[in-house]
């Protein structure tokens, strides 16, 4: 069976809720492309996630009022993390295993084996926004800044 057509599905779904104007999904004809500057075994790899994970035991966990990019230490055991994400297929699966959407343990294992040089010291959390302009002009710019600050050579981005 072929993959789910989410753009069609959501258009029909929100129309059924009374929203007639279909959402205009981002689309570009040109796609940027940058090659790795050095072997992956020498690269520092950053991770970006939309999973809205927070530290289970930190009372100062970020709240989502401002919906700003935030970062957490990449060496934190995943058992200390939990996702607050609401938009996933809650009928078919769970977000109980952090490594299934934020593969920090797997990347640490691969770094130990030398497959990647190292994991960047922080991973970055970005909120999903209706406003494409906010994502590009505010959030993406901030993530780029943080990746550069951490000396990342490549970035893995995971969509929940």
């Amino acid at each position, binding site marked *: *069976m072929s*993959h*789910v*057509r*989410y*753009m*069609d*599905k959501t258009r029909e*779904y929100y129309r059924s809720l009374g929203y007639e104007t279909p959402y205009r*999904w*981002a*689309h*570009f004809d*040109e*796609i*940027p*492309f*940058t*090659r*790795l500057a050095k072997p*992956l075994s020498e690269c520092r790899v950053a991770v970006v996630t*939309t999973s809205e994970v927070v530290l289970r035991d930190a009372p100062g966990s970020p709240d989502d009022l401002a919906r700003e990019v935030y970062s957490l230490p990449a060496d934190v055991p995943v058992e200390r993390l939990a996702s607050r994400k*609401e*938009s*996933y*297929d809650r*009928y*078919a*699966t*769970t*977000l*109980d*295993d952090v*490594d*299934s*959407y934020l*593969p920090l*343990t*797997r990347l640490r294992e*691969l770094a130990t084996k030398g*497959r990647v040089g190292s994991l960047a010291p922080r991973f970055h959390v970005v909120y*999903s*926004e*209706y*406003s*494409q302009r906010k*994502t*590009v002009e505010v959030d*993406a710019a901030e*993530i780029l800044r943080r*990746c*550069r600050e951490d000396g*990342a*050579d490549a*970035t*893995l*981005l*995971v*969509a*929940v």
Partner: protein
Amino acid sequence: MCHQTVGLVTRHLEANGLPTVVFGCARDIVEHCGVPRFVFSDFPLGNPCGKPFEPAMQRAIVEIGLDLLERAVAPGTTVVAPYEWDPDTSWKDKVFTAAQPFLDEAATARWLRRKESHREASRP
């Protein structure tokens, strides 16, 4: 929206000299946006890096992404992870249906408020 958000961020990083790879489960949204490298898992939204509590599969999927980082020679390259969620594919038919509202009532209300406030802010 997550997949579009990640698509927009990955494009920005890549355009500024940082190689990227995206992991996701909504192939149409990511490919419509256009990203340099994409590992697609044909799974329900939530676990693009492998099934929960299956570390061997998770490791294999992450490695597919790392291979892609090294080997892709052109933008817009998608690799399909060779795993099936379940022989029963009925979950695909049920996504975004009245029988299975994607968000619960409170989350839907929050989402619609954000959507309306964006539309208000975008009006000339």
